[in-house]
Structures are given as structure tokens and as C-alpha cells.
């Protein structure tokens, strides 16, 4: 459908490791998630205290996008879109919130409730990086590369988007996976990309769904 779109960068975070473009960048074994992600924050961000108010899913998304942010730093925020998918929705935050509305310990927490929707992580990403383009969050069992490929192509061809953050972002019961990539429209001027991966269904599938 579109042959001027490429996958310019990818980031995978799981099992206490951070991998960018297939290279292991960061590892923090044998510590719980909250310690791992805090250390990643200290290494890659370190100046955004709002991070500590976020739920587990949002922290995961913020770190993953930070590692991809070079690819869109200079792009107009209205031209950047975000398309994310997961299967657990916001279940992790939902469970945390449920615990605050238990009969014998009834103190509903507003700061936790805020995160009981899966797309809030997109909100956090957009707030931090001043992204005003289109965003969507799909909940399904797997990452359907064909469906997402078509959604993204439409974004680029009709919706004034020239850069997109796309991928899978899931957190449940301390099991987590962030597998995101940047899709970009390229022009003649951008021929200095070393590893241009064409944006196709197959390549999107390989990038998001590949095993470590």
C-alpha cells in the first residue's frame, strides 16, 4: 500500500532488560519491576518527577518511548500519532484501585483511579513529549499486525501524520512487555538511515512480535 514508510527504531522492554534495535542497552537482573524501572528512569530520564505518580503500565510506556524519542524530537507534535495495543487493558491499576474500595478499608484513591484506563499511558506520553496528533488504544488478545498495519497506513495517508509510535504495551501480575517502534514517512532527504526497514505487515510483525 505505502512504500515510503519505514520502521526507523524499535525498543523492547521485558524481563528486566531494555533492548533497542536488537542491542541490549540495559539490564537489571534479580530485582523487582519497580526497582528495575526506577533505575531505568534514573539512567534515561531523571528529571521528570511526575514519573513517580504513574502506574506500572505508564512507567513502562514512558521509558520505552523515551528510548525512541530521538526519532521524533524535531517533529511538530500535531503530526505525531500513537497506536498501542494490549490484552490486559488497565487491569494492573484496576486491581490496585479495587483494594482502596474494600469495605473495611474504604479510602478510594483518586491518584490510582486516574490510571484505570489503558489509554492514560498515551496521555502521559503525549503530555511529556507535547504530542497532539491522533491516538488510539486497542484491547485484543494478540498484536494483529495486519490490522495495525492498515490503521497506521491510513493515519499517514489521510490524517496529516508523518511519524507514529506503534506497538504492544502490557503489564499484568508483574509480567510485562513493551514492544514499540517508530514508523516514519521518508523523503529523498532522509536517505542517511543506515538500516531502513520498510514498513510492511511482515516487518511490523517481526519487529513487534519477535522472541528475545
Amino acid at each position: 500500500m505505502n512504500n515510503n514508510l519505514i520502521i526507523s527504531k524499535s525498543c523492547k522492554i521485558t524481563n528486566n532488560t531494555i533492548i533497542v534495535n536488537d542491542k541490549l542497552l540495559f539490564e537489571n537482573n534479580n530485582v523487582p519491576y519497580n526497582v528495575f524501572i526506577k533505575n531505568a528512569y534514573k539512567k534515561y530520564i531523571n528529571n521528570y518527577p511526575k514519573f513517580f505518580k504513574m502506574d506500572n503500565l505508564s512507567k513502562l510506556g514512558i521509558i520505552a518511548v523515551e528510548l525512541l524519542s530521538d526519532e521524533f524530537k524535531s517533529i511538530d507534535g500535531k503530526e505525531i500519532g500513537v497506536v498501542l495495543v494490549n490484552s490486559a487493558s488497565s487491569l494492573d491499576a484496576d486491581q490496585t484501585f479495587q483494594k482502596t474500595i474494600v469495605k473495611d478499608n474504604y479510602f478510594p484513591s483518586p491518584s490510582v483511579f486516574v490510571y484505570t484506563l489503558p489509554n492514560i499511558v498515551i496521555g502521559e506520553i503525549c503530555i511529556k513529549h507535547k504530542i497532539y496528533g491522533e491516538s488510539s488504544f486497542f484491547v485484543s488478545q494478540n498484536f494483529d499486525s495486519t490490522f495495525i498495519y492498515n490503521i497506521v497506513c491510513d493515519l499517514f495517508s489521510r490524517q496529516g501524520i508523518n511519524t507514529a509510535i506503534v506497538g504492544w504495551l502490557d503489564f499484568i501480575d508483574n509480567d510485562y512487555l513493551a514492544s514499540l517502534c517508530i514508523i516514519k514517512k521518508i523523503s529523498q532527504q532522509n536517505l542517511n538511515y543506515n538500516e531502513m526497514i520498510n514498513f510492511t505487515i511482515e516487518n511490523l510483525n517481526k519487529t513487534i512480535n519477535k522472541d528475545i
Partner: protein
Amino acid sequence: MKKKVFISGIGIISSIGNNVIEVLNSLIHENSGIIYSEHLHSVYKNEIPVGEVRLTDEELKELLQLRNKLQNSRTTLLGMLAVSEALKNANILDINEFNTALISATTVGGMDKSELFYREFINNKTKGKLKYIYTHDCGESTEVIANHFKLKGFTTTISTACSSSANSIMFGARLIKNGLAERVIAGGTDALSLFTINGFNTLMILSHEHCRPFDETRNGLNIGEGAGYIVMESEDSIKKSGKQAIAELKGYGNACDAYHQTASSPDGYGAYLAMNKAIGNANILPNNIDYVNVHGTGTPNNDLSEGLALQNIFNNDVPYFSSTKSATGHTLGASGGIEAVISILAIQNKIIFPSLNFSQQMKELTICPTSNKVENIEIKNVLSNSFGFGGNNTSLIFSAV
């Protein structure tokens, strides 16, 4: 590839009616569906008014003729009923005759049942009825609805807070425009739950009275429940079936407010961007819009943000606008779908439905919502806004055919 997207059917259930005719009658008679809950056993039962659907789960099952012993979440039951009506309304006898997809949206999913399990389970891990939790996932409602109607085509679930079902409609339209489906049933469903009532209450954005959207004295929203779905078809599909389209989805736009997780920007930037995109996408001008069905939740924050955005985009020449949430309550993930149906009813019946409980203009704005219904008025284009937490803002444009 400027394919048109037509609407051939609509289905709805809400606190003001269990189907299209009942909802239309309530809107015409300016009735409100906001009451103190009869089915939900919240500690706030007699304090916080809600837009509750008047049927119990059993009554919903009866209408659907569901004789199984399976536990269904209320969200799913509401969705099934509205989809059923939309399919009948669109004269669809064989759902798989053409390549048909279902894009459904929800935020509550099966939480209305899971929370019943959790109350017992948290205190004693041997207690709690497991049958309450297998309906929990958002995707479950979509799959059960698809299976109930024996749909073989593509299905997916969108969950983006209060813009969820508006986004379903937008994505459904894209499937058609890109030739990936000939028909799409799109919309959303959400049931009342203790989870959402407590959550919104702790954010202090619930009103303890009937909400007053766009009124100077507004003090919060009323949560509602319900489901709204539309059947969209490609031009070819409509021609092949010899049907009459009832409306056209002329344009849509989505943008991010990028301001706060739950509050809207003070100048309504995200709202402005979404409306602007939709109007551009429809290839019309702002002054071609005859009616805006606003998001209008009745919170101090939303109505100011949205009001300023309206003034901006229409250059202070704002068309008739009203918030039908004053009648139905804020149906969260279902609101985009429910209000899509209401927008189409406005076009079909040539009526601008009123914004209830309005009496005092907001001091920051130069505009007021329509507080009395306007009848016998030609409505060519309706703009319908759905703005969600996370800054996810969507605007849809429905047009007369």
C-alpha cells in the same frame, strides 16, 4: 479513494429508553433519565444520582431470549441489545452475507461482576464466585456479542475512556474506506459499577444533583450506562442491498490534548484540534455545521474547555449546541455511540434536542446551549464530540442524505 460511508441502522439503550423509539420520545418530551439507583448497591445509592437503564439483568436477558446459565456482564447484555436493534434497523438478515466487522468499545467491561467477586475474595481467598470473573476483560464483551450474532468477520475492542465508541466509529469507517470491510457495526457499551462511581466520586467531579451542562452553577457530572451502535456500509453495499441510507458519516478527527491525565486544557486546545480535523476531513466549513452535540459533561472543567474551543472554531458564530448527557447521564465508553445515534435522530426528525437544566450563561463564554428543543429545522450536518481522559479527543460529523 474518496469512498463514502453510510449509516444503514442504529440501535440504542440508555436511561431514557430501551430502544430508538423510546429514546426519541424521551428526547422530544425533554425527559431526564437521571435517578437514584435502583439496581446498584452502592453506599451512595441515595446520594449520587445516575443515568441508570431501567431494566434489570434478568429483564435484559429476557428481551434477548438468553436462556443460558452463563454469567454475562451487564455491559455485554446492554451491548447485545443495542447491536440487535441496529442489525434489525439495518435490515440485516444474514450478518455474514457481506464482509462485516464489529468494532466495539468499553471501559467497564465485566467490572460490574468482577467487583462482586472481589468483595468476598479479598477477605477470604476461598470465597467469591468464580463465575463473576470470567467476563472481566474488555474484549470479552465484544467476543460474546460477535458470537451471539454468529459474526465471522473481524472484531476488535477499543478502550480510550470517554472517546472509546466514537473511536470505534472512526476506525470502522476506515475499514470501509480502505476496502477491508463492506459493513461495520461500530459503537460501545458500559454498565454502571461501584468501581466507576467510587472512582469518579474520589475525583470530586460527580454532581449530587441533576447535572447542568454549560450552566454557570454546574458542579459535576452524572454517570450513566447504556449502549449505542450504528451499522455503517460502503456505497456499494448499500446499492447492492437496495437499502436507503439514513445518514452519512462525513468526517471524523482525533487529537490529543496533551495537558493532564484527567483534566482538559484551559483553552480547549485538544478539543479545537479534534473538531478542526473532523471539519477538514469532511471537506466542509464550520458554518456548514447546523448542530453540535457537545461532550458537555457538566463539570466545571470540561464545559469551559469545550466552550472556548467552540467559540474558537466557529469564530464566535456557534451553531445550536446541546448536551444530551443532561438527559442520559455520561455513559463513559458508550457515550460516543449513544450520541452518534442521537445525532442521527436529530437529522432524521429535524429536531435540535435541548440541554436540560440550563438557566445561567457561563461568565467566561459568549454562548449558551439550546435549552428548549427546536423543531422543524433542516439539519444537514451534525458535529458530535467525545472527549476522554488521557486527552483522547474525537469529533464525528454526521450528515443528512
